């Protein structure tokens, strides 16, 4: 269960990776992760190669390793799951350090750990090098339904506002000496959630009226529609192509 989402991951910078168009980055990343996911789990060195590729991208984007590692906590629940796998899986047993572990479970645990970690790092690199507005434009260019992109745009725009509203409610509770100590206090917090919904919805109605008064007729104008140069696509394709090459070699050696 992941908790705080309070801060966007974006790290302002001006690198090759930052300058790539968002939709090219998105496609490149999805392709990369698909290659990683479909690699057989026994090719241990292939995963090392993938990790090296991602490290290369991080270096190009000048994202420090510490930044990436700190954000990797979102993966923790599944790491626990992966670590349990050798214990609970049912297959031939091998004895490691005096523990009876499932061989298949060990491989499955490794599989989840390796692929999950590579996926998380890839996502972190995308989020760190692409700001929210560019990402939404990228989604729009990828022909995601316009209405969905609009909803996402509103969510991104007002996410911080609503979160701040919730923080103010928390400050108000705590300044009246309230402290959630046991389950009975859930009621107070949940009532706050209800009040938050009313405030949020009413804000939405005001936003809609403001949009109408500025000429909104059911669709937002597309602000930026510059085409992507060939060079952008080529550099974006480097990562998945390199990964595919690794996967091919791994397949050939099988």
């Amino acid at each position, binding site marked *: *269960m992941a*908790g*705080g*989402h309070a801060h966007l*991951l974006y790290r302002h910078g001006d690198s090759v990776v930052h300058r790539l168009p968002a939709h090219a980055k998105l496609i490149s*990343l999805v392709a990369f*992760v*698909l290659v990683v*996911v479909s690699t057989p789990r026994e090719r241990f060195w292939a995963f090392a190669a993938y990790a090296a590729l991602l490290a290369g991208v991080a270096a190009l984007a000048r994202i420090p390793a510490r930044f990436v590692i700190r954000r990797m906590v*979102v993966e923790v629940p599944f790491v626990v799951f992966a670590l349990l*796998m050798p*214990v*609970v*899986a*049912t297959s031939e047993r091998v004895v490691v350090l005096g523990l*009876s572990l*499932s061989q*298949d*479970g060990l491989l*499955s645990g490794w599989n*989840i750990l390796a*692929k*999950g970690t*590579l*996926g998380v790092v890839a*996502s972190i690199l995308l*989020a760190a090098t692409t700001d929210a507005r560019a*990402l939404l434009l990228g*989604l729009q260019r990828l022909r995601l*339904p316009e*209405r*969905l992109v*609009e*909803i*996402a745009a*509103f*969510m*991104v725009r*007002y*996410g911080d506002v*609503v*979160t701040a509203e919730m923080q103010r409610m928390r400050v108000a509770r705590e300044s009246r000496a309230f402290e959630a100590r046991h*389950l009975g206090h*859930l009621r107070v*917090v*949940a009532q706050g*959630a*209800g*009040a*938050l*919904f*009313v405030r*949020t*919805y009413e804000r*939405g*109605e005001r*936003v*809609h009226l403001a*949009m109408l008064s500025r000429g909104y007729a*059911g669709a937002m104008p597309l602000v930026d529609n510059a085409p992507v140069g060939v060079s952008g696509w080529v550099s974006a394709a480097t990562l998945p192509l390199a990964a595919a090459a690794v996967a091919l070699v791994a397949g050939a050696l099988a």
Partner: protein
Amino acid sequence: MHVPDGFLNAPTSIATGAAAATVVGIALRKARDELDERTAPLAGLTAAFVFAVQMLNFPVGVGTSGHLMGGALAAVLVGPWTGVLCLSVVLIVQGLLFADGGLTALGTNITLMGIVTVAVGWAATRAALAVLPRRPSSVPPAAAMGALLSVPAAAAVFVMLFAVGGEASLPSGGLMVSMLGWHSVIGIGEAVITAVAVSAVVAVRPDLVYAARGLQPVLQLKQADGSIVTVNAATGATATGRRRGVRDLLLGGGAVALVLAGVVSFFATGNPDGLEYVAGEEGFLKTARDHLFGDFALADYGGVGGIPVGLVGVLGVLVTVGLGVLVFRGLGRSRRSTSEVTDR
């Protein structure tokens, strides 16, 4: 609960992605019935609300905490289709901007947390509302019912997906039991928060609560000449009453059928395992020495091979519901066009 990359194999991820895309596509069109042209700002703000509320952590057991999924809450407050849209957008944004949940697992995450929680939560809420007295104060307990069931339902679907595309020979029976047990506890927390939050909204602005539409008392206006005129406070709700009925039947019935086919049949297949265990008690001693956890050793004793029964049930229900929806839509369209003709 955000599933990362590589947890399920590529075919399963792609299949759940296709399912999620289909449902979100339908939801995009259906949400217009719930919110008309205000969809974008209101659904966007509600998504921001769900996003904020998901940060509410509550203690589950010793030292661990769960957080609100918000599927049932969103369905009750803004309607099931808008709820699906809001949850999906939250998950997309979390995946892309916060690296929470894998990119290739986005479809899986939307299916689990955006669609299953909303569908089951809404179906259970409607079922409870059908039994409870028809007044706005019935909505919070009904919402609690929806939230309570929505969390274990998502966990059950997750276990089923894992049994199909998990690339590990985990005993699905044991995994199912532990996941359902754990998430039932989380479901209680979800139910309490949902019920209290909904009742706070019902108390202030009952008109905002989608599930409370049509439950407001009928107004009786006394005219100046002494005659009494009854006015339905929620005229909009009665105008769309018939269509909502059909949709609810589809949604609710489909969800119940899915749960029965997918979850209950799993327990049905679990039965022979136990019987077999009793029959071969001597063999048990040997297995128990091999395994660290006796429970899981028992579960694998029956050895479910091939495709799990639950999956077949779920697929059957999905195909049936799909066909049913197609037929209904065809009927509805022809009926609507004839009524238009007669109106003129």
